[in-house]
């Protein structure tokens, strides 16, 4: 199978306010297959958002290549096909909703790519249905909760029927309820609609849901693997300034104390390992 997104020796440098050349990304090599759920973790300034913005040509590599569905993002003519293939949901739900009525906002992307008027409505309705916001189609966005607004933003991206969606810390500004709704929606998109997910997050409980985790540090990929492979290396994760899920930390401490345990990520697994009778 062809990878949907491929980075080949991708580097990105920019000139900052003091005329200093800064390297945000250096020599990234990465292949993402269709249907994968990938979590990108890393501290602030580790380059994870910068990397994600290369995936839908909001940024282009200063060196190397980024291919989306086989198309080079640096080529001007590929810009709109690339952005239709890879959608993006941002952190602040307020700053990505354009229109003053929910359904108009969901239609925004479709209007931009010139879908004929009568075809827009069914696609808007389908997108709202998927995120469970059909009842709010005629509402004003500013009256909705953060989690609801974020689901509207997802619907707006979904209406374009992308093959892949990049989420840039979508739950960072939400309350626990909103966070849960968004995580469930993301999982649903991945499992039911087979949409490739690239999920940037600070929250390790969300990252462990992914098929593959990419840990970034100072502009390069530091670790890569399944959640188990990554989070069982507790000391390395700590060195990156990140925290492992609590259960993994406890398991690690027990292992250091001489207990034999399998790799552990969740509370359930920890309980099972410690008290196998249950």
């Amino acid at each position, binding site marked *: 199978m062809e990878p949907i997104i491929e980075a080949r020796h991708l580097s990105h440098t920019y000139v900052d306010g003091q005329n200093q050349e800064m390297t945000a990304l250096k020599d990234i090599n990465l292949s993402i297959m269709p249907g994968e759920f990938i979590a990108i973790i890393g501290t602030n300034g580790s380059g994870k958002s910068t990397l994600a913005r290369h995936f839908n040509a909001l940024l282009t590599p200063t060196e190397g290549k980024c291919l989306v569905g086989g198309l080079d993002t640096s080529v001007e003519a590929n810009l709109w096909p690339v*952005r239709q293939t890879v959608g993006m949901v941002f952190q602040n739900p307020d700053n*990505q909703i354009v229109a003053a009525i929910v359904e108009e906002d969901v239609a925004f992307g479709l*209007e931009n790519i010139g879908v004929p*008027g009568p075809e827009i409505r069914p696609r808007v309705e389908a997108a709202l249905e998927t995120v469970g916001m059909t009842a709010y189609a005629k509402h004003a966005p500013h009256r909705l909760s953060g989690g609801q607004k974020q689901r509207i933003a997802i619907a707006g991206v979904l209406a*374009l029927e992308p093959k892949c969606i990049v989420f840039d810390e979508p739950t960072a500004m939400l309350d626990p309820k909103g966070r849960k709704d968004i995580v469930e929606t993301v999982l649903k998109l991945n499992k039911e609609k087979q949409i490739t997910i690239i999920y940037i997050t600070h929250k390790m409980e969300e990252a462990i849901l992914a098929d593959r985790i990419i840990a970034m540090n100072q502009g390069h990929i530091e670790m890569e693997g399944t959640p188990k492979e990554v989070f069982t290396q507790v000391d390395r994760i700590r060195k990156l300034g990140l925290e492992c899920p609590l259960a993994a930390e406890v398991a690690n401490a027990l292992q250091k104390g001489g207990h034999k345990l399998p790799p552990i990520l969740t509370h359930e697994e920890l309980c099972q390992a410690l008290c196998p009778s249950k």
Partner: protein
Amino acid sequence: MLTEITLGQYYPGESVVHHLDPRTKILGVLFYMVMVFLANSPLSYGLLIAFLIAATALAKLPPGLLLKSIKPLWIIILLTLVLHFFTDPGEVLWHWKVFTITKEGIIMGIKMSLRLVLLLLVSSLMTFTTSPIVLTDGIESLLRPFKRVGVPAHELAMMMTIALRFIPTLLEETDRIMKAQMSRGADFSSGNIVQRAKNLLPILIPLFISSFRRADELALAMEARCYHGGEGRTRMHELVYQKRDGAAAFILVLLFAVLVFLRWGMPA
């Protein structure tokens, strides 16, 4: 508290007037304004007033609502009336020292202030029965033909849409900043006007900074959703003229014909 402000003066309803195409209403209002200046006899003014009353009744607006829209301009209306009373030359009715009231002055004063009131009322009738969002669609659609001569129709409409979307958000933010500054000891309610204006600075600066940040993020999000200006853009709701728009246009043209006849057709 600030977020309770409603935008514009839209009075939601399901009447025929509410459902008229926004373009019909905008053009109708402009046409009515022309007719206001065409009228020159008591009968023609009577017809214009009757039309307005009928339209208000049809829109099922509370009668007092429309009259309230005169309020902000009542000083100007009164001034028009009084100035004409005392300054127009003609047959003297009353004279005291430098003050002279003439018959022509009274007629002219009433005519001019009546025109002002009618202009105000008819435009309020439109804004009461058309939501700002629909009005924006109407304006965009009407300006589109002028694109060739450089009128940025789509850009104007997009700006209005974004403004409508973000005004409540920014009000909310202002509220938050005010509370944050008050908790740091800022005082917004005492001192003279200059003092108070100065006190607003700690609200305005954070508000400006955050607005720029929002604009930046919004632009990015719009680009990510394939926005590239009005070129090749379609709309979910295309405006379509209905039978009722034809009926409204017919009534207006009829009114126009009658007014033209009253002005030029009648033997003097």
